[in-house]
């Protein structure tokens, strides 16, 4: 998964588990940037009566570095408060919920947003309502309208939303974790079987999203408007985090947290802590800020997966195998994931933040949204997509599989010829021919406006099954 349950400790704490991070120039409002951090992975939509919610005891953050040192210059913090109207009922809702103020909605959440920079902290909004979870057609019959009311306008032209959304990340989990047995390429696997179509393991599942849309000038160094893609001030680095207080004291039916806020989850580039960082370092990686990432450099230079691909697909990656045998450090992956791509590597594009190696989602805010986006982002000649930030529909699994398979190594060594197969790999659906709209065929439906991630799947109708007939 992008970062769902990716490390031993955080897999036990889903409320604080940051699963995906998105940062992109808003397609319908290109003078703004949208930042989305998802938490609480793999939600079964029917999981009541205690439906999913943010943690009152968790400090959620979206951080922005605009001077390239891997530390935050701007941070948006989110704190939640749960309110129960009637503690004598087990019900999440005692009737139909038609508005965010209905008394039939028994267990609700509110939150406060704080923006912090060098000049201090400012509360952008407080007592902001989350929407309820999408329980089903009797409880939340007009869910899109209900959730739309939970998009709040803040000062300075900002928008914010926090609540349940449909999972936007698609991946064939079962194939990836069954020894990388990508279904469309099974016939080439070391354990060959006939090739079949990929499966989207996250179809029908939900997450909880924290989304904020802000003017570009809110994020860039010196409040730069982001008008020139070659200007270093146009590039920002983004990561999300969750913190818990250091000590939890369990009492009789209650618990208390004490101590400073300790970071327990972090996410910049997708899939890094998942498949780049080794098992013994994953929890530590989650506890650090990006400025300390140089200590993990060897894992980026020599990713384990690059060594596995020629073994799992014996006759498919001879050039990658030779590259591995030479022990060449993957300067391409270091650039993409740790420093950004300097000018001159890809004509007209850069998202370089300097020599500090820091795992951040780098976004050049001067690159305008694409009118015909490629699911492959920069690999599909679409500079508005990953790894220039990340849009909700970018096929980051296929992009990173291809990069690790050697496609991007030619950017730093022109004598290297990537294997033909490297530019064909995918897991769920072919991104060479797919579009954001075509992803509806694998259960991914996005919105064209904020918060962009789709309406959550409702609990009554998900998963979609045919009811068993009663015997007469």
């Amino acid at each position, binding site marked *: 998964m992008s970062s769902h349950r990716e490390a031993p400790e955080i897999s036990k704490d889903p409320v604080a588990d940051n699963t995906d991070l998105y940062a992109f120039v808003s397609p319908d409002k290109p003078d703004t940037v949208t930042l989305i951090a998802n938490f609480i992975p793999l939600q079964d939509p029917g999981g009541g009566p205690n439906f999913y919610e943010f943690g009152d005891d968790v400090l959620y953050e979206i951080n922005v570095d*605009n001077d390239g040192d891997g530390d*935050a210059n701007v941070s948006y*913090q989110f704190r939640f408060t749960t309110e129960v109207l009637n503690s004598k009922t087990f019900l999440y809702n005692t009737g139909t919920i038609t508005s965010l103020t209905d008394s039939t909605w028994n267990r609700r959440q509110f939150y406060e947003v*704080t923006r912090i920079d*060098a000049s201090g*902290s400012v509360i952008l909004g407080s007592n902001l309502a989350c929407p309820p979870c999408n329980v089903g057609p009797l409880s939340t019959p007009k869910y899109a309208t209900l959730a739309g009311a939970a998009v709040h306008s803040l000062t300075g032209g900002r928008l914010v939303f926090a609540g349940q959304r449909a999972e936007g990340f698609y991946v064939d989990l079962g194939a990836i974790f069954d020894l990388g047995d990508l279904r469309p390429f099974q016939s080439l696997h070391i354990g060959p079987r006939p090739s079949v179509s990929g499966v989207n393991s996250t179809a029908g599942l939900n997450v909880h999203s924290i989304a904020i849309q802000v003017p570009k000038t809110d994020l860039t160094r010196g409040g730069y408007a982001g008008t020139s893609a070659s200007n270093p001030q146009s590039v920002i680095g983004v990561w999300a985090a969750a913190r818990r207080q250091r000590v939890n004291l369990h009492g009789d039916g209650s618990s208390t947290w*004490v*101590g400073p*806020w300790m970071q327990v989850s972090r996410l910049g580039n997708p899939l890094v802590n998942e498949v780049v960082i080794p098992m013994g370092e994953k929890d530590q990686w989650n506890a650090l800020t990006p400025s300390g990432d140089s200590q993990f450099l060897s894992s980026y230079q020599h990713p384990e997966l690059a060594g596995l691909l020629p073994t799992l697909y014996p006759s498919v990656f001879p050039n990658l195998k030779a590259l591995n045998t030479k022990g060449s450090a993957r300067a391409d992956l270091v650039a993409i994931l740790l420093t950004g791509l300097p000018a001159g590597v890809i004509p007209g594009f850069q998202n370089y933040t300097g020599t500090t190696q820091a795992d951040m989602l780098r976004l050049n805010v001067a690159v305008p949204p694409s009118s015909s986006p490629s699911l492959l982002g920069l690999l599909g000649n679409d500079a508005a997509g990953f790894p220039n930030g990340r849009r909700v529909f970018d096929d980051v699994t296929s992009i990173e599989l291809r990069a690790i398979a050697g496609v991007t190594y030619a950017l730093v060594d022109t004598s290297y010829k990537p294997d033909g197969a490297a530019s064909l790999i995918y897991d769920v659906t072919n991104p060479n021919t797919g579009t954001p709209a075509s992803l509806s065929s694998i259960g991914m439906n996005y919105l064209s406006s904020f918060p962009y991630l789709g309406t959550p799947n409702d609990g009554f109708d998900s998963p979609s099954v045919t009811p068993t007939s009663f015997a007469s």
Partner: protein
Amino acid sequence: MNRVSRRTFLRQASMGAAVGVATTVPSFLRRSDKGKASSEIAAAPAGHVTQEGPLVAHIDDVNTGEISVMVGTRQVTYRNHEIARRLLSSAQ
């Protein structure tokens, strides 16, 4: 925007997140430096200290006497062999 140091930024970040904690923290815990001498701690006017919520003392290293004291979202670490020894003894 002026460059912000990590220490400054974290201080601002915790201030933004820790609503109301500062008013409940005993005065001696407001020191942020590590390794304060135990005599300074002892000099705090204990009779005037108020506390809301639990206070947790964690012996980081009994050999060095390093103790982390936490209340609210604050933490102060100091060294006092005697207190560390007595705390450990009381738990045995």
